Each structure stands twice: as C-alpha cells, then as structure tokens.
C-alpha cells in the first residue's frame, strides 16, 4: 500500500505519480490522505490500480478514468468521474451536480444522493445511485444505464437517446420525450447485474424503466441530411 499525503506533496505530484503506473505495475494499492476538498484528484488514470481517497473532494474527482478503481471515503463535488472510459468509481457519501457526465464506460456507484444533472449526456457508463438524484438527470443521455434506488427530480431523461433509466422511487417529472417503458425479462436481468455491481440492497422487480419515446426531431428520418 502506497500512501500519498496530498497536502504535503501536492496535486500535480499525485496525478503524475498515478499516471506513471503502467499496466504491469506492482504498486496496485494507493491511499490519498488529506484531500481537503481539492479539485481534480486522481484524474486521467490508465492502469488497473486501486486508489482510496480518505475524505471529501472538490470538482472532477476521477475524471476520464480508464481501468482504475477509485473509492472516495467522503463526498464529492461537481463532475465526479466525468467522461470516464472504463474502471470503477465508488463514492461513499453524496455527489454534487453532473456526476458521471458524458461517461463512455465503466461503473460509477454513489452510495448517498446525487444532485442535479446526474449522468448528463452519458454515452455508455453505468451509474448506480443508492439515494436520490436531482433535476435534469440523464439529459440527452445516449447510452448506458442509470439506476436510482431512491427518487428522481424534475425533468428526468429530457431529450433522451438510447440510455436506460431505472428508478425505484418516485419521479417528480419526466423530461421531453422521456416515457415509462415496459420492464421485460432482459431488462430485469440487466438491472439485477447492475444492482449487484453497485452493492444495492434492492430487487429488480421494485423498479420502473424509463426511456426515449423517440418522437423528437432527430428521430424522424425525414429530418436526416
């Protein structure tokens, strides 16, 4: 286990050290102490290492992650795991706005609540939230899955493409072109796997599925160039 004191050694040093880890590194376990709400902790990683952040972080923690597993033992600021490609990011506390935005792959687990714009423009990432999510979540979400064990805020899934949304609790309102959809056996199976990966104590049968009605301008072939 490698311990890195962020306050003493600084952010550039942290990210440079983590970037220097290759696929075959022997230093696979890292601990970051004294994060003190700093921005851009453990961004742009590309190695199968595990990073444990002991405290709360600021903006963009775990952004652009590939391969790495990042656990935050606290809450995170805006843009956690933004544009993640692969790997796993787990937040023990809450996440601020636009968690997992534009993520292409990997898994983001938020054990508390996520605020507004969770999964905005997601492109293949799986996001699993144990608590509630705020307004305008999954706006223009293109693919991937968003699982919410609690409630969703206003305008869920506005202008949605092919992402699948699963919500156990209430949905304050659906955004434009987002509708409730039938939960078929294949969706139950996808959701069962997601709940297991996210460590959720919930059954797939308790959820409703939401997706695109495909009625907006872009979905009409006559509007194609």
């Amino acid at each position, binding site marked *: 286990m490698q311990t890195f004191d962020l306050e003493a050694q600084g952010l550039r040093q942290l990210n440079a050290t983590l970037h220097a880890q290759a696929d075959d590194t022997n230093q696979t376990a890292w601990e970051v102490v004294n994060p*003190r*709400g*700093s921005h851009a902790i453990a961004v742009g990683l590309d190695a199968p290492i595990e990073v444990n952040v002991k405290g*709360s*972080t*600021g*903006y963009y923690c775990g952004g652009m992650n590939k391969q790495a597993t990042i656990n935050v033992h606290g*809450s995170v*600021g*805006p843009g956690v795991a933004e544009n993640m490609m692969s790997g796993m990011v787990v937040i023990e*506390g*809450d996440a*601020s*706005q636009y968690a997992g935005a534009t993520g292409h792959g990997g898994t983001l687990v938020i054990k508390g609540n996520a*605020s*507004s714009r969770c999964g905005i423009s997601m492109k293949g990432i799986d996001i699993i939230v144990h608590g509630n999510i*705020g*307004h305008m979540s999954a706006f223009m979400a293109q693919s991937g899955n968003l699982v919410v064990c609690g409630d969703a805020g206003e305008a869920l899934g506005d202008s949605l493409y092919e992402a699948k949304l699963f919500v156990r609790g209430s949905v304050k309102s659906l955004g434009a072109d987002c509708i409730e959809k039938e939960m078929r056996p294949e969706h139950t199976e996808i959701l069962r796997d997601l709940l297991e990966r996210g460590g959720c104590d919930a059954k797939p049968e308790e959820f409703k599925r939401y997706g695109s009605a495909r009625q907006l301008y872009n979905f009409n072939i006559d509007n194609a160039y």
Partner: protein
Amino acid sequence: MCGIVGLFLKDKSLEPKLGDMLTDMLITMTDRGPDSAGIAIYGPGTEGRAKLTVQSDTPDADFAGLDTALAERLGGRVSMTVKDTHAVLEIGKGEIDAARAALSEIRPSVRNMGQGESLEIYKEVGLPKDVAARFDLRGMSGTHGIGHTRMATESAVTTMGAHPFNTGPDQCLVHNGSLSNHNSLRRKLRREGVHIETQNDTEVGAAYITWRMMNGATLGEALESSLVDLDGFFTFVVGTKDGFGVVRDPIACKPAVMAETEQYVAFGSEYRALVDLPGIGQARVWEPEPATVYFWSHNAVPTAHEKAA
C-alpha cells in the same frame, strides 16, 4: 464565477473567533474570485445606537474630523472607528436617515456601505487576503457573518461593484452568478424611485429585495418572489440581524455546500472553504436544494417571516 462563505455561530464561545474563521474561509475562495472581496459581520451593538459603515477613496481627507462635524449636524453623540478606507460611525438609533442626509452635504465623496444596529460591511478591490488584512477582519468578533470573493462578469471591478450589498437595516446580500434581466429591472426599479448607483447586476438584485420589503414583503417573501422575477443564475446568501438565509435559482448551476454541527451552520461555494472548521469531519454536510429558501436564526421566530422595519 465567485466565491461565497457564511458562518452562523450557535456556540457563543466561538464568537471571538468569527473573523478569524471567516477570513480563512474567504481566502480559500480566492481562486473563485480574485478581483475583490468583502465581508459583512454582525458584531456586538450598543443599546439605542446604530452603525453606519461608510467608505472613501480619500479617507485621510474625508474622515478627518468627520465624527465632530456629523455630531454638530445631528446634535447628538457620534463615535467613529476608522479602518483603512472604511469608517464605522456610531450614532443614535433613530438618526440613520438624518446622518446619511448630513453626510451627503458635509462629505459628498463618502459612500454608504451599510447600516444597522450590529451590521458592518467592509469591501474593496484586491485579493481576498489583502482586503482581509487592510480591515483586520481576523480580529473581528460577532455572532454571524458572510463573505464574498468576486470574479467580475457583468460590470467593472470597483469598490461599489464588490459584495456584500446592503439591502436594508442590518440586511445584506451576496451573489454568485449573473442576472440577465438586470437592465430592464434597473429601469423598472428606478421608475419606482429606488436608488441604484452602478451597472452591477447584483446591486439590482439587492435593490429588488429592498424594494419588495419596502412594499410590505418579508425577507422570505422577497426571496421567494426573486425566483420568479429574476432571470439568470444565482446563489444568494442574505445576512439578517439574527441569522442568514440561502436561496438558489431553479437551475442551480452555481455550487453551494452547507455544513451544520452543534456549534455552527456554515455555507461555502465549495467544500474546500469549510475544511478547517472545528468538527467538520462529524458535521452534517449537504447541498441546498434549488428554488428553496432556507433560514437559520437565533430567534425562535426566524427573520424570514418578520416584516422589515
């Protein structure tokens, strides 16, 4: 981008440290607003007396003999504490309007920063650490205070464009965001006879709140209606005689973090601003909801529901 900090103390033993704690929070928010900084602090008042905080770009000339000159005009006792470009004039409780009128004649270049029984406002252009040092903010004690670091987007970097803005006796407002309908609203408020000095968007927001309360709204009602009448982005923190309030616009893209313990309620634009507060590791930390008005008060009846004086 701007930075906001706020601290409301429940534990009296922390009151001598209020300025010190707020200053640390303010300096942490320098990245969000290096242009100018300001603080509103609710300190000990004197029974039957009121405070007028004034500013001058030429303090040596303007503040020389100001207490004596003002006392002569008011016919009462005036005491003055000068801190750099600001001076706090302590006058009789009912003399605020008379004092302001007298000031505009005897010292026309002196500008009004704030008024109230316990409120003092200090703000200037410069890095937050320099502004804090000029006014010795660290040494101030009080029950609660709010601070602001400014990165100007809508108007010039000037003292009068810095926050907090005074909105009434013992009331003030700081803002993170940008209002898009401030020009039309400024014209409307000026037609209603409201004095607005600068091209700054937040001054219009503050004038709007003041105008609503002059017409009978409570502070809570004024903030509620701001959600309808103000267009743009805002996280507002308002200071009141006995507490503070928070409201965010419905889009809520401007960040806000709150923390509460047995000892205090704290506000920060980012969690970073809160990390040195005592017991923060055990604090309840959360993000205030959009389009929701929050208040914390020492009164059993929160200020939000009281009519403005």
